[in-house]
């Protein structure tokens, strides 16, 4: 008799998901699956909307990384207008994306994952959260909150609001930075840099106590994908796509993101609203075909970005990057290191903001290239906090959307997340009597990826953890609920 354990909902992630763990008749984990349970259908209902409204609409895909969608959408619009946007607009968009990376990474680390890391995987689930952290370690919590606030404030300074600004548009951006805004941002840099450095220090200490997690939290070979500059440096807004393998070999490089369909395919599984993108040249890693299990899996996001770039391009972050690679032995394959990579990216983003904040272009009023519909199709790409984001639009001659395809960062980690939950479950779970802390580890494995499920399903947990006893024929034999 086999069993199925459903973790429902997966909590402290940005979205609605469940995890099912399958046990065989002796209580050994045979498989585990990660399911996303929301779907909103942007790809369909955006059809018929004007191109110029798309940044504003697609920002609503996600409240965590609206800026990523805003930028990818505006960039797809740039292509359709066939314009080169003003240099000041590029700098301003970059500034906002850096702010976005900071606020989202801060949220992932401090608000969502730090409770596991600092309070313990097995700590009381009632207090294992940001509010518990606020009580247990107020300084750290406050630092994290203020770090996120820093990112949000930059977005607000530029876009007029913290969430869902409609500031980037096809052809450029709507408003420059104000002098007051610049001063405010500049003044806060020292504080947030300190917060980021402290957090890095603290995380490095945690690595000592979380060796088992580092080993088992999605630690497997795969490809990594992300944008790099033409020189191979860390990139978040433009550039080319690069794939590297676990050994650090560049599998594909200088790929034009507009040709994403040539190397990224999307598969559908019946048990999730989240599609499973795969690296097309290597094929879909069919679950039934173990020899192909590793083939097309790739990971995106902070870990991938740090694995594919030569360096970040700012002094402190580059120093941290070297240490990161030492600790991870070259190309880092453990998904637990996503947290680490995230903190390094925060630091790098702060440094890059510092480098650019005094650029006079940020106050420029030449921000927008006006043009009509000059191409019927356009792909916009950006590095969202969670990885590479593609917006692919086809429009009619007047600029009404005819077809929309969105390939979202989190989705591209779907195969990896499935492997991760299976790996953790096999390692930590034995028999049907499972301590809560063990199940929390399975969830924590997911949290490492910081999945943004609003995004991934262009959509959008609850209810108890429940265990279902499932017969060999798939019928439900018994069901127990645990609070």
């Amino acid at each position, binding site marked *: 008799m086999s069993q199925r354990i459903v973790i429902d909902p997966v909590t402290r992630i940005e979205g609605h998901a469940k995890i099912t763990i399958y046990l065989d008749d002796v209580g050994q984990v045979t498989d585990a699956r990660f399911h996303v349970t929301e779907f909103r259908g942007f790809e369909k209902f955006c059809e018929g909307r004007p191109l110029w409204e798309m940044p504003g*609409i697609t920002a609503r895909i996600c409240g965590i990384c609206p800026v990523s969608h805003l930028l990818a959408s505006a960039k797809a619009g740039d292509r359709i207008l066939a314009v080169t946007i003003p240099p000041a607009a590029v700098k301003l968009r970059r500034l906002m994306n850096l702010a976005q990376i900071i606020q989202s990474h801060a949220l992932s680390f401090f608000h969502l994952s730090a409770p596991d890391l600092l309070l313990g995987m097995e700590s009381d689930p009632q207090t294992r959260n940001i509010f518990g952290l606020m009580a247990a370690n107020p300084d750290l919590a406050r630092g994290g909150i203020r770090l996120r606030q820093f990112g949000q404030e930059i977005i607000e300074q530029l876009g007029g609001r913290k969430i869902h600004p409609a500031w980037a548009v096809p052809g450029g951006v709507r408003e420059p930075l104000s002098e007051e805004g610049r001063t405010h941002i500049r003044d806060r840099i020292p504080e947030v840099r300190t917060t980021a450095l402290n957090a890095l220090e603290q995380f490095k200490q945690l690595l000592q106590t979380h060796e088992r997690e580092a080993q088992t939290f999605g630690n497997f070979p795969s490809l990594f994908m992300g944008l790099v500059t033409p020189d191979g440096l860390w990139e978040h807004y433009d550039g080319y796509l690069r794939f590297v393998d676990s050994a650090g070999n560049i599998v594909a490089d200088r790929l034009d993101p507009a040709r994403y369909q040539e190397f990224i395919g999307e598969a559908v599984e019946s048990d999730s609203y989240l599609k499973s993108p795969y690296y097309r040249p290597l094929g879909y890693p069919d679950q039934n075909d173990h020899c192909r299990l590793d083939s097309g899996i790739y990971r995106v996001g902070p870990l991938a970005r740090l694995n594919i770039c030569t360096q970040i391009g700012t002094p402190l972050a580059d120093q941290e990057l070297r240490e990161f690679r030492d600790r991870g032995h070259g190309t880092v394959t453990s998904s637990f290191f996503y947290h680490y990579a995230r903190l390094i990216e925060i630091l790098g983003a702060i440094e890059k903001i510092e480098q650019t904040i005094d650029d006079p272009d940020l106050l420029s009023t030449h921000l927008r290239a006006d043009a009509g519909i000059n191409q019927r199709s356009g792909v916009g790409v950006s590095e969202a906090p969670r990885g590479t984001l593609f917006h692919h639009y086809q429009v009619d001659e007047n600029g009404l959307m005819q077809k929309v395809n969105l390939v979202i960062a989190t989705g591209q980690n779907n195969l990896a997340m499935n492997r991760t939950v299976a790996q953790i479950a096999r390692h930590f779970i034995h028999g049907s009597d499972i301590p809560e802390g063990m199940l929390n580890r399975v969830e924590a494995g997911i949290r490492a990826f910081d999945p943004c499920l609003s995004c991934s399903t262009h959509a959008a947990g609850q209810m108890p953890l429940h265990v279902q006893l499932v017969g060999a024929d798939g019928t439900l034999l018994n069901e127990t609920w645990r609070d």
Partner: protein
Amino acid sequence: MAVKTLTIDDRLVSAREEETVLDAAREAGIHIPTLCYLEGVSEVGACRLCLVEVAGSSKLQPACVTKVAEGMEIQTNTDRLQNYRRIIVEMLFAEGNHVCSVCVANGNCELQDLAIEMGMDHVRLEYQFPDRQVDLSHDRFGMDHNRCVLCTRCVRVCDELEGVHTWDMAGRGSQSHVITDLNQPWGTSQTCTSCGKCVEACPTGAIFHQGSSVGEMVHDRARIEFIATARQKQQW
């Protein structure tokens, strides 16, 4: 020129004989909400937001077309009127697809302002979610029927100020919609002079400048008033 004296909201107000209650109230600084009313073109009394109570009459009267009369006693803002007005605004929100968050007129919309004014924090009526189209065929302007409240301001400015009558209403009842010429894409209209007055007249984000992104569309009503005065009174 005969002058009439009347009371509006218990205030004594004087007005010229040919003025409407709305004119008199506005001159006295008393706000009466409107939607289909547009300074410079004829009144149609269709939106019913400006209904006021007139002492001695059981029927509510639209301020925009009701002429002042000596000794008239008007109440513009009773609970009953406010309640009716809120339902009217709710009706409009339920009827079309008014998604403020992603509308080009977000922040610059008379419908949105009315909702705020009426304290409408939610809509009790059933949303219809009609399947309506967007027309971007015109070089300079766009029309999103989802956001149209059928106030006919565009129809009237086009007919009365520009004189080409490109716009009109077609269909009936809940199937009513505005059209250009023979219900053809705006860009193919032979009558349209691309003057843009309909764009400025539109109270919502239904008619907009091409290329407007979310929250970016601002209507310039003053331009309509200016043109109306110039055309009708030869005053610039």
